[in-house]
């Protein structure tokens, strides 16, 4: 037992060893983000003939701990763009503030047209690339969904290295391994986009969210989904996964206590 009040309620050194202060450096060089802390998992999106569907669950994890279960990771920028954030949540909140100030700036400017999805993707990609070049990355993988200057569906990605690419379907994080193959079955190429309507695209995305919930341990059955068309953004932030079937679970062997 220790008589010093600072020690009360703390792990005892005799039992747990001295605290390693290298984790709490009080001096030394300025620290940049070297790893994400509170993270969001996959964002998935697919184009269809009139627009884009994008979805992400409402979970922010702290390592393996499901820390915040009501975090909205889809951000509506204006009536034709939605940004989906995977990765570090604090960096997402920084980008959210940045987009807010950009939006205000744009609304005060005299330019007639508002920023479209392509403009916003270029902007965010340059922000990401600049920060990686300063060795101070924003630890996110973004999907930018919306309409381009010709009101055609637009979907592109930008990550913490500033890498950019575009495809009829995109998925970040775990989704790139689990959801992307399912999405590509329906939308293998740009030509296939014209043959998919809104209902089919939403159904496809919901199916992928279900697969992700089944197999991604850092996921949640509560998610946000946004549909961007010429008529504007339809954003729902409190969707619940439907028609889950865990019937497959009992056929899985080798992880539990079963003998065979």
């Amino acid at each position, binding site marked *: 037992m220790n008589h010093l009040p600072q*020690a009360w309620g703390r792990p005892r050194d005799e039992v747990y060893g001295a605290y390693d202060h290298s984790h709490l*450096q009080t*001096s030394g060089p300025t*620290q940049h983000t070297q*790893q994400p802390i509170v993270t969001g998992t996959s964002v998935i999106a697919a184009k269809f003939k009139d627009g884009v569907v994008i979805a992400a669950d409402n979970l922010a994890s702290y390592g393996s701990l499901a820390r915040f279960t009501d975090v909205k990771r889809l951000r509506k920028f204006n009536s034709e763009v939605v940004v989906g954030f995977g990765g570090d949540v604090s960096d997402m909140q920084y980008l959210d503030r940045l987009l807010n100030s950009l939006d205000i700036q744009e609304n005060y400017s005299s330019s007639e047209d508002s920023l479209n999805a392509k403009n916003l993707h270029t902007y965010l990609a340059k922000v990401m690339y600049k920060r990686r070049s300063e060795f101070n990355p924003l630890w996110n993988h973004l999907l930018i969904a919306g309409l381009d200057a010709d009101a055609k569906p637009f979907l592109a990605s930008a990550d913490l290295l500033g890498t950019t690419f*575009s495809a009829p379907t995109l998925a970040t994080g775990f989704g790139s391994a689990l959801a992307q193959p399912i999405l590509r079955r329906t939308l293998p190429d740009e030509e296939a986009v014209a043959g998919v309507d809104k209902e089919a695209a939403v159904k496809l995305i919901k199916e992928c969210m279900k697969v992700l919930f089944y197999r991604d341990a850092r996921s949640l059955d509560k998610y946000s989904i946004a549909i961007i068309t010429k008529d504007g953004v339809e954003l729902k932030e409190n969707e619940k996964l439907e028609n889950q079937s865990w019937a497959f679970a009992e056929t899985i062997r080798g992880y539990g206590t079963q003998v065979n």
Partner: protein
Amino acid sequence: MSAMFSLAPPQGGPGYSFNQTPTTAPSGQRQHGFYPYTDNGGSTLGISGADFTILAGDTRSTNGYSINTRYAPKLFKIGGEGSDNKGARIVLSVVGFAADGEALKERLDTIVKMYKYQHGKPMSVSACAQRLSHILYNKRFFPYYVHAILGGLDEDGKGALYSYDPVGSYEREQCRAAGAAASLIMPFLDNQVNFKNQYVPGSGTGHDLKAREAQPLPQPHVEDLVRDAFTSAVERHIEVGDGLQMMIIKADGIHETFTPLKKD
């Protein structure tokens, strides 16, 4: 910043244990966890002829074993008018780290366009080639992680092709393969374009053997060589595939073609 928030007991005062905990960080820098580069795979290739230059690249973009997208062009028109580079006569191909490639393209394109505004004439390929070398060399200590190939027509209207390493060393060549499958394509090009290891039939044996002289190849033949090089590379390299983009630079402009490749 970390000094603002500390859970450690007050510095200098009594610690919360009799055996004092270390309050200073162990010596030696902690390792940075952020690596600013990645390899996006893919391959590019350029061949110059008597009155044309062909640049080609596959359109797959990868990250590890994942395919980012099946269509991400690695060929960019440089100069000309506006964002679609109307009337351009120079093509840049970049392979390696795609974000650096994009940044490099953007810089060179701006410079070439500014040159035309300032001098009232389009930039020559040789000048553009040297400028590209300088851009790369200027970032010598934080390089653009790309292998660039620049193609166009020189002052005499002959095909001009320049290849670069990431820090700006460059050379004018007849042909060059770069990127993931460069080691597969380059030996094929050495043999089929520069006729390496080919000898004139009946010229003798041993030291009497006469090497077959390299000469500029006709355009349809070069196009066939490019397609063969890529279809073969696709078979043996997982990062190459999906589509083949070709740009043929001639006196009347840049002709662009797209050929599907295997998507597996």
